[in-house]
């Protein structure tokens, strides 16, 4: 990734944060912490890694990207809008009556591969896509972005076991690993540690990276699969609420609403981070 691309990704991450803050404030919705947590990785994934085309969102050989942590959907929607999958002004119609965009992502929106919202649904579907692509000899890859909470679900681990068993090396699980979930620290609720070791024992090739260092995100995904014959997992160490100091590492921003005053404070900080 050259410096120009890196600059573009940094600006896209900043725009994504601004969109999300405004959308959550206007919609009086939640999950801003979860959105900001993945705001740096999504621009890199969508502009540098995935084979996707905003002008042809359903092209047959596209890489599939499933956001299993669908509650953070506004971040993905912001990236898709900025890249031209659908008009930017749709973002003004988020979480409102007669709105275009629901709080959890829907496949009715161009560029959204799969609807999620209830956790534990992404990885099984990604496994099915991986199986079918392999059977048909197709070369597209299947990415699934998971999270601490998503990995509490038994169905996620059913899929993790299956992917290891069947060597789906066209499947890439990304983990937005901010170590917080709805009601507190993951360590105090369901401690996933050592996630890396667990996934290795289940037959996955595992890499870890800083999910807010965009060059590191790029480097983590440029040589897929990590190991031929194994599904790939990349665990991104992230900070819930990243970019807004009063939200960072505070689990209350899983749900917390954003008042006009707090929005102004947050925007000031994000905009100053240029």
């Amino acid at each position, binding site marked *: 990734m050259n410096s120009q691309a890196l600059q573009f990704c940094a600006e896209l991450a900043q725009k994504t944060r601004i969109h999300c803050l405004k959308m959550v404030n206007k919609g009086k919705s939640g999950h801003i912490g979860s959105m900001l947590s993945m705001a740096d990785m999504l621009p890199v994934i969508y502009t540098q890694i995935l084979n996707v085309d905003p002008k042809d969102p359903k092209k047959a050989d596209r890489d599939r990207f499933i956001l299993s942590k669908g509650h953070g959907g506004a971040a993905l929607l912001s990236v898709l809008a900025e890249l031209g999958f659908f008009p930017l002004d749709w973002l003004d119609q988020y979480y409102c009556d007669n709105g275009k965009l629901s709080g959890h992502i829907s*496949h009715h929106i161009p560029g959204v591969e*799969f*609807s*999620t*919202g*209830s956790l*534990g*649904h992404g*990885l*099984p*579907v*990604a*496994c*099915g*896509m*991986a*199986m*079918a*692509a392999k*059977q*048909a000899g*197709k070369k597209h890859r*299947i990415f699934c972005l998971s999270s601490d909470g998503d990995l509490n679900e*038994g*169905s996620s681990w*059913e*899929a993790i*076991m*299956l992917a290891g*068993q*069947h060597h789906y090396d066209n499947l890439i699980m990304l983990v937005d690993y901010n170590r917080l979930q709805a009601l507190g620290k993951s360590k105090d609720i369901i401690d996933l540690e050592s996630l890396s070791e667990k996934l290795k024992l289940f037959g996955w090739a595992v890499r870890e990276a800083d999910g807010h260092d965009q060059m590191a995100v790029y480097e983590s995904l440029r040589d897929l699969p990590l190991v031929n014959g194994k599904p790939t997992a990349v665990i991104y160490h992230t900070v819930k609420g990243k970019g807004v100091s009063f939200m960072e590492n505070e689990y209350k921003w899983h749900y917390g609403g954003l008042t006009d005053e707090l929005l102004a404070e947050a925007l000031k900080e994000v905009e100053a981070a240029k």
Partner: protein
Amino acid sequence: MRKAFNKELLEIAKKDPRVFMILADIGYGEIEDFANTFPDRFINCGVAEQNMTGVACGVAMEGNIAITYSIANFPTLRCLEQVRNDVCYHNANVKIIIIGGGMAYGELGISHHSTEDIAIMRSLPNMVVLAPCDIPEAVALTREMMKYEGPVYFRCGYKGEPDIHSGPIEAKIGGSAQIRDGKDATVFFAGTVGINAKKAVEQLAAEGINCRLVSLYSIKPIDKEAIIRAAKETGGIVVLEEHNIDGGVGSAVAEVLMDSGNGNVPFKRLAMPDVNATKVGCQAWMREQYGLGTADVINAVKNMVK
């Protein structure tokens, strides 16, 4: 019936390379031919029905037809949210097959009784609900199901069920099958419990009470026209089903009658009472115990026509 289903599916899969079978470690003695013939279109997900259903959805979204197949409630209630959010919301081409609708696994107990499935499956948008009563219907409906693009729930029987039809039939989604005609009353049924309706109607005929007998093998969409016609042309309607009385085929027929302004027709549902079935016994015995026997149908009709 499961053998007839698997045989028909295998024949279809030989001609259509889009057919995949996605299992959760159920199907011993039945699925091996498919697995051996099409190893690259077969996967056993292990005892993991949520994953089975999600995988099937992913396989279907890549342009295929995915079959999930298991006993009783395992591919429906165990993974209901995957059926709702993944399969139905995405209108994915997934066919959910259960073996042993109703109390086919009677002696195994309530975990293996599928007696709320129709109410739940028919409430899901995009879902087609089919319940063949015998092998001719199972074969015809398997063909129709595989031609249809979208989610289908197929409530298959188990084994050794007697035929109700006298030979092969044509069936269609949204259709029904009239087995005999009569004016005194109509007995509707769905599924293999229909054998009790057939025996009852034959006995009633011997006593001079002539009933129309109709298999409502397509529960959603349901054959509204056949139901309304029965209300107008016959003296009353009895509905027999092997399902909880709430929300099943009887409820679906009642909805059609009320919505069409035919709510005044004499009407009786014969279904499982709203209890957990704690008695232990085979399917035929359990049917008698819970009000679904031949005598129950005869009594219901006689009470209606007297």
